[in-house]
């Protein structure tokens, strides 16, 4: 076991607990970043939802009921200005429908007995298929669009039934319900709300937490290197009978360790909110009632996801934090070091985070994204959902490779006099 390493870990922790400069790096910087990231994300999601809503103006309907209420539903949709494409389908045809050939994102299937149920005031269901293609964050909005059409039809119908039969509207609860099913390539996703929760988690929350963790650790490590210079211990350190890399290692370790704990707390709060939401959506989804369709395998997140994610995140942390450490070696004081990391690493990270709004449809685009740090974290869940394993592996491993490269450069600098003579960001001092 390396004695110097642990001595410096303890020293770092002590200083961290006692030094207000560290507190600034710990609290203020991540908070500012969080605000920026949330702002950017929020804006982007709003844009995407707008687009999705537009796509919801074109809908396909398969009418297997051929009854009066099915007719009314189609008329109702048209009255809303929706472009309804009626797909012909023989009632006796037991073979599944080739849904892949349907061009709209939403497909309503009105099952047999739909009108009969309604005329007997028995609840009737519309099976709703939603095509999932781009896996962008806003795509989940299409579920709400589909659900809204059915629930609006439901209210309209309730009103007219109440009028016809002369019963107070309040006595009738719902009569038309929608069973929403997602379609991802050849797979049926029975609970698309949860699916989109997973997509959002994979492509927004996890990368965001990872991003904050990494920026936070980067700030910490830069601060702690600069503190060695500000407290004028740097030269002394270089003459000590210890492996210099154990000091560097201790700094990397403490920064990543502290920020992991910090972010774990933060993400627990976030997941608390998030889990509640998943539970709520589960309650809303009615039991399925499949008609005339082959049920394909239902969806679960592949277990490899965790492994890929851990490899990706560990690599990312090593890469970004070593890089910040390297950059902070150029700085003479804490303020400069924090500014370097804040001004160079921060925006770079946000910029490479942005491709998450891209639709990664071609293999080449996906592979390119897999090689960009942080972007690959944001995309990892999509690659796995799309079952693109080459890309998933590339996304998992590439960060580690970058991390190792930076680490090798770092070691070279640290073990030569360059570590002492590097002074590009020297602040002018009044002497």
């Amino acid at each position: 076991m390396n004695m110097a390493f642990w001595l410096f870990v303890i020293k770092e922790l002590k200083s961290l607990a006692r030094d207000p400069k560290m507190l600034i790096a710990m609290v203020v910087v991540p908070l500012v970043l969080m605000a920026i990231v949330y702002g950017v994300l929020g804006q982007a999601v709003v844009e995407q939802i707008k687009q999705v809503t537009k796509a919801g103006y074109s809908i396909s309907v398969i009418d297997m009921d051929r009854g009066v209420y099915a007719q009314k539903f189609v008329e109702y949709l048209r009255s809303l200005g929706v472009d309804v494409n009626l797909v012909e389908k023989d009632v006796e045809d037991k073979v599944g429908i080739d849904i892949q050939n349907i061009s709209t994102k939403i497909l309503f299937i009105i099952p047999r007995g739909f009108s009969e149920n309604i005329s007997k005031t028995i609840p009737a269901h519309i099976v709703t298929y939603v095509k999932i293609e781009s896996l962008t964050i806003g795509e989940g909005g299409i579920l709400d669009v589909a659900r809204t059409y059915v629930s609006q039809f439901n209210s309209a119908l309730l009103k007219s039934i109440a009028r016809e039969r002369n019963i107070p509207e309040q006595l009738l609860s719902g009569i038309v319900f929608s069973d929403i099913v997602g379609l991802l390539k050849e797979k049926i996703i029975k609970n698309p709300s949860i699916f989109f929760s997973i997509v959002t988690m994979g492509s927004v929350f996890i990368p965001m937490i990872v991003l904050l963790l990494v920026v936070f650790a980067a700030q910490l490590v830069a601060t702690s290197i600069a503190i060695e210079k500000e407290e004028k211990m740097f030269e002394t350190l270089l003459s000590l009978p210890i492996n210099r890399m154990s000091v560097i290692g201790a700094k990397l370790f403490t920064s990543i360790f502290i920020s992991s704990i910090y972010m774990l707390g933060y993400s627990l709060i976030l997941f608390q909110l998030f889990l509640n939401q998943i539970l709520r959506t589960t309650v809303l989804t009615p039991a399925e009632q499949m008609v005339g369709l082959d049920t394909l395998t239902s969806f679960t997140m592949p277990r490899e996801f965790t492994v890929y994610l851990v490899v990706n995140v560990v690599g990312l942390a090593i890469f970004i934090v070593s890089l910040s450490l390297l950059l902070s070696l150029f700085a003479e004081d804490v303020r400069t070091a924090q500014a370097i990391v804040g001004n160079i690493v921060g925006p770079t990270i946000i910029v490479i985070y942005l491709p998450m709004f891209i639709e990664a449809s071609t293999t080449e685009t996906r592979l390119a994204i897999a090689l960009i740090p942080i972007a690959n974290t944001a995309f990892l869940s999509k690659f796995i959902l799309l079952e693109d394993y080459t890309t998933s592996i590339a996304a998992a491993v590439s960060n580690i490779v970058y991390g190792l490269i930076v680490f090798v450069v770092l070691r070279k600098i640290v073990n030569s006099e360059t570590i002492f003579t590097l002074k590009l960001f020297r602040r002018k001092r009044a002497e």
Partner: protein
Amino acid sequence: MSQPVVVVENLVKVYQKNIRAVDNISFYVYPGEIFGLIGPNGAGKTTTLRIIATVLQPTQGRVLVYGYDVAKDAAKVRRIISYLPEDAGAYKYLTGLEFLELVAKLYTKDPKKIEEFIEIGIKLSGLGDRLNDKVKTYSKGMLRRLLVAKTLMVKPKVAILDEPTSGLDVVNAVHVRESIKRFAKDVGGTVILSSHNMLEVEYLCDRVAIIHKGRILVVGKPRELMERFEASNLEEVFVKLVWGA
């Protein structure tokens, strides 16, 4: 005379391709000696000490400490030296005692030695109860005393002290000088130091090298130099040499 423990031969250090901070100097330091490098600002004292302390590498020439080359065997050299940089500090948010403890543990794993080092450090610093306060609260003189203590307490074979008394008042300077003398006498350690203060050097050093513009002008015992240059103190020797040069 015995074998020199520090050998500096034809040492050249060039910064940024054209600043010749040290220009072909040679000197030898013998066991138990207190050796002084004296010279005006920018003479190359700090540069020379940094090379002996393995912080910088020679551009040309060689420097050996107990036979180990500072460039090739830096790790071995670091085990037998202890260095006090000119503009050194300590971890502000540790107490003086915690700082001494940290340094002691970096030099040895043996718990007995760690204790011994800390005990010597406490005595050498003379800071008493103030050692329990954070370094942040120390005055310049107290900090320097702490740093001299941390440098000498680990009983290095060679202690390298860059201007150990600069900026100190008389009381603190005397304290530091006594610590250095005691180290050489009690531990039998060798000391290389730099200074501007000629009186101090006269009192403290067994031999001195006068260095100017990266070159050594003369090496010898203070008394001998004074006789040779018919001067009443080292300051005069220095003036005669520099003006003469």
